[in-house]
C-alpha cells in the first residue's frame, strides 16, 4: 500500500512537474509575444529601397518574395525600419548623387503612399510617436560615402531630406575612406573624411562603421563626438569575415556608447558557410560581380539569380545549412563582451541571404523568445530590439544641438 501510495505520489509528482514545465514553456512563448509586440522593434538595415524601382513590388501588400512589406512587418512586430539608400560603390561623382536622390525620393513616395500604416521619421522622438500611434516608423540610411559625390553640401542635403545615418563606405573605398573589402588606399580616413565625420556630428547624422576597414573604424571612433553605430555587422570572433567586428572593436565601440546591430547574412554569421562560400566563389564581393555580369543593373534579376544559385548550392551540399539561431549566438556574444546596452538588430533583409528559419521579417518574434529562454530580462530584450539604437540616436541629436549652439 505504502509502496503503491509512494508510487502514485511519484507518478503524480512527475505529472505535475511535466505539467508545470509545459506550462512554463507556454508561458515563455506567451510572455515573449507580449513583450515583442509591445516593444519598439527597430531594424537598422533593409535594402527594400531597391525593390521600389521594380514593377512587381508593392510595399502595402504581402509579396510572395523578398523579406519586407507592411503586412509582414505587422505580422513580425517590426515597427521601425531604416530603408537603405544604396548604389554600387564604383559609381561616383554626380551620377551617384542623382541615383541616391532618386532612392531617397522613392522612400518618401512609397511611405507617403501608405500613410495610414507607415510614417517618415527623423528623430528618436518621431519613432516613439509613430509607435504610440500604432504606425511603422520609416527612416533612411545612406549605405556608402561615395554617394555624396565628394561634396559636404550634398551630405548636408541628404541630412535635410531625412537621412539619419551614413555608412562611410560600401564594398569599395570611396574618395576619403577605406573599405574592409578593398585594398587600403587612404590608411583609414583622409582629412576630408574626418571633416565628413565632424559634419555628420553637426547634422545629427549617425556615423555608420559597417563596411569600413578596421583603420577607418578607429579613425572615425577617435574623431566622432557622438556614439557610432555598425548598422549591419556581426562578430568576427564567431565568423571571421572582414565585414564583422573583432571583440576589440566592439569593446571600443561600446566604450564610446555605440551599438553593433547584428547582420543576419549567412556568410557573416557562420564560419563554415563563409569558408564554403569563399571556396565556391571567392567571397561575397566576387559572387556579386559574377551575377552582375548576367544581370547588369537589374537589381531584381541579381536578387533572383543569387537566391537561386545559393539554394542550389545548399541543396547540392556545396554550402552548409545555417540556422537562424546563429543570430542569437552573435547577440549573446556581444552582450557577454560589453553588456546589453550595445547590441541591436540590423538584419540586411532584402539585401542578404537569410539563415534558415529567418525567411522574412515575420520570424522576428523568435528572436525575442530565444533571448527570453536564455534568461534575458524584459528590459534587456527591449534594449536589443530597439531601445539601444534609439538611445544612440538621441545622443547624436544632443551632440548635434550642442555643436550647432557652439557655432
Amino acid at each position, binding site marked *: 500500500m505504502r509502496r503503491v501510495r509512494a508510487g502514485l505520489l511519484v507518478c503524480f509528482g512527475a505529472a505535475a512537474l511535466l505539467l508545470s514545465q509545459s506550462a512554463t514553456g507556454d508561458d515563455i512563448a506567451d510572455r515573449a509575444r507580449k513583450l515583442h509586440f509591445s516593444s519598439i522593434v527597430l531594424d537598422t538595415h533593409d535594402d527594400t529601397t531597391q525593390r521600389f524601382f521594380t514593377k512587381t513590388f508593392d510595399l502595402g501588400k504581402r509579396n510572395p518574395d523578398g523579406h519586407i512589406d507592411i503586412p509582414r512587418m505587422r505580422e513580425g512586430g517590426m515597427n521601425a525600419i531604416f530603408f537603405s539608400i544604396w548604389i554600387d560603390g564604383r559609381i561616383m*561623382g*554626380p*551620377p551617384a*548623387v*542623382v541615383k541616391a*536622390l*532618386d532612392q*531617397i*525620393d*522613392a522612400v*518618401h*513616395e512609397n511611405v507617403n503612399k501608405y500613410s495610414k500604416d507607415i510614417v517618415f521619421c527623423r528623430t528618436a522622438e518621431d519613432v516613439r510617436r509613430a509607435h504610440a500611434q500604432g504606425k511603422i516608423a520609416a527612416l533612411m540610411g545612406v549605405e556608402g560615402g561615395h554617394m555624396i*559625390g565628394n*561634396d559636404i*553640401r*550634398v551630405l*548636408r*542635403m541628404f541630412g*535635410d*531630406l531625412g537621412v539619419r545615418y551614413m555608412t562611410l563606405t560600401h564594398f569599395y573605398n570611396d574618395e576619403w575612406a577605406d573599405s574592409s573589402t578593398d585594398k587600403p588606399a587612404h590608411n583609414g580616413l583622409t582629412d576630408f573624411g574626418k571633416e565628413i565625420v565632424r559634419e555628420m556630428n553637426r547634422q545629427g547624422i549617425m556615423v555608420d562603421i559597417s563596411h569600413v576597414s578596421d583603420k577607418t573604424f578607429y579613425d572615425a571612433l577617435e574623431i566622432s563626438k557622438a556614439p557610432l553605430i555598425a548598422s549591419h555587422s556581426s562578430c568576427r570572433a564567431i565568423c571571421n569575415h572582414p565585414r564583422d567586428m573583432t571583440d576589440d572593436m566592439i569593446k571600443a565601440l561600446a566604450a564610446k556608447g555605440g551599438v553593433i546591430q547584428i547582420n543576419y547574412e549567412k556568410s557573416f554569421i557562420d564560419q563554415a558557410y563563409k569558408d564554403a562560400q569563399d571556396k565556391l566563389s571567392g567571397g561575397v564581393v566576387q559572387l556579386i560581380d559574377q551575377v552582375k555580369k548576367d544581370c547588369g543593373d537589374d537589381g531584381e534579376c541579381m536578387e533572383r539569380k543569387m537566391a537561386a544559385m545559393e539554394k542550389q548550392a545548399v541543396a547540392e551540399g556545396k554550402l552548409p545549412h545555417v540556422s537562424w539561431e546563429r543570430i542569437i549566438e552573435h547577440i549573446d556574444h556581444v552582450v557577454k563582451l560589453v553588456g546589453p546596452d550595445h547590441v541591436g538588430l540590423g538584419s540586411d533583409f532584402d539585401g542578404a541571404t537569410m539563415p534558415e528559419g529567418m525567411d522574412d521579417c515575420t520570424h522576428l518574434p523568435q528572436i525575442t523568445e530565444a533571448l527570453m529562454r536564455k534568461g534575458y530580462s524584459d528590459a534587456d530584450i527591449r534594449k536589443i530590439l530597439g531601445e539601444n539604437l534609439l538611445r544612440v540616436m538621441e545622443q547624436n541629436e544632443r551632440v548635434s544641438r550642442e555643436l*550647432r549652439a557652439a*557655432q
Partner: protein
Amino acid sequence: MDFRLQSRLALALLLCVGLGIAVMKTRAKPRGQAVAERARKLHFSSLVFDTHDDTTQRFLDGDFDISKRDPRGSIDIPRMKEGGLDAVFFAAWIPSKITGPEAVKRAIDQIDAVRQAVREHPKDLALATSAEEVRSAYKQGRIAVLIAIEGGHMIASDLGVLRTFAALGARYMTLTHSGNCEWADSSTDKAAHHGLTPFGKDVIREMNRLGMIVDISHVSDKTFADVLAVSKAPVFASHSSCRAICDAPRNMSDEMMRALAAKGGVIQINYHVGFLSQEFRNAEKAHPEWEKAITAEVQKRCGEREGCQLIEGDRITREYVERGDLPRVDWTKIVEHIDHAVKVAGIDHVGLGSDFDGANMPFGMEDVSKLPRITQALLERGYSEGDVKKILGENTLRLMEEVEKVSREIKGAE
C-alpha cells in the same frame, strides 16, 4: 491807364502771383513730405516680397557674408532691412548648357548654400516654404527666405529630382533658362519642342501636385500657352516685364498678361534695364560688340566665380552708361511697367521680381535699400494703400496660397 494805376495793378498782380507761388510752395512742400512719410509708413507696414534674386551664386563664391553690408552687390541683410524687404526668393541657377547629373549636383549645392545662410543667421532669416511661413516669419521680424530653381535643366529630366528639390524647400521652378531644356522651349533659343513636350506637361502636373509655382519667365510664348492649358494652379512670371514698353522676348505681351491674369496668375516686374527700356535695348542691339567686350571684362575680373560675374556685369554696364555709350535708365521705368501691367492685367496680378544680383539695375535702384521709392511712386500715381500692398507682396502670397490649395486637392484625391 496812368502809370500809377498800372504800377499798382502790376504790384497787385505781382503780389497775387507771389502770394500764389508762396501758397503753392507752402502747400506743396508739406504735401511732398506727407507723401514720403505716408509711403514709408505704408512700405514698412507692408509685406514686401521679391520673387527673384540671384544672390545664391554669391554664397558659393566664398567671399560674401550676407549679414554684412556689401556694396559690391544689391542684397544683404542690413540693406534688406533698410529697404523693408520681408520675403525673398533666392534662385538656384546654373547655365542651361550644363545638364544631367552635373546640373543636379550643382543645384543641390546651391540649395544647401541658401539653407546654410538661413542656418547661420537664424535671428534675421527664416526659411519659408508656404505663404503661412512667410507671414509667420514676417510677424517674428525675420526675413523669409524661399528657394527657387531657375531652369528646368536642373532636374535632369527626372521627376524624382524635382520632388527632391521640393522636399528641400524649392517653391517655384522656372521651366527654362536662356536655352531650351530637354522638355521646354526658351524665349531666347530656337524652338525645338514646339512649347512643352509630353514629359514637360508631366513636369507641370507634378509641380501642381507638389505645390510648386510654375514660373513662365524665360520660356517661349508657345511654352507659356501650353503651361496655361495644362496647369491646374495659377502660374507666375517670377521676373519679367512688359513687351508693350520694351520689346524683349523675355518680357510678356499684353495678350499674355491678360491670359495669365485670367487664370489668377501674377507678373513680377523685372528691373533689368534691358527689359525696362526700349532705348537701352536698341542701343545694346546696335552694338553687339559691347556685349562681347563686357563679357570678356567680366571673365577677366571674376574668372569662374559666378556670383562675381553677375554683379560685375552690372558694374561694367554702368561704366558704359557713364561714358555716354549706353543710355541712362532711371528707376521710374520700373513704375511705368508696374502701371502698364496693372492697366492690362489688373491690380491683383502684378508684383516685384527685381533680378537683383543677376541683372543691370536702373539708376536709383542700385540695391534693395531703394525699394521704398516704388511705394512712394505708386502712391504719387494715385494708387490706394490697399493696391500698393497687393503689388508689394500680397498678390504673390495669394498666388502661393492658391498653388498650395491646388496641391492639397490633388493629394487629397489620390
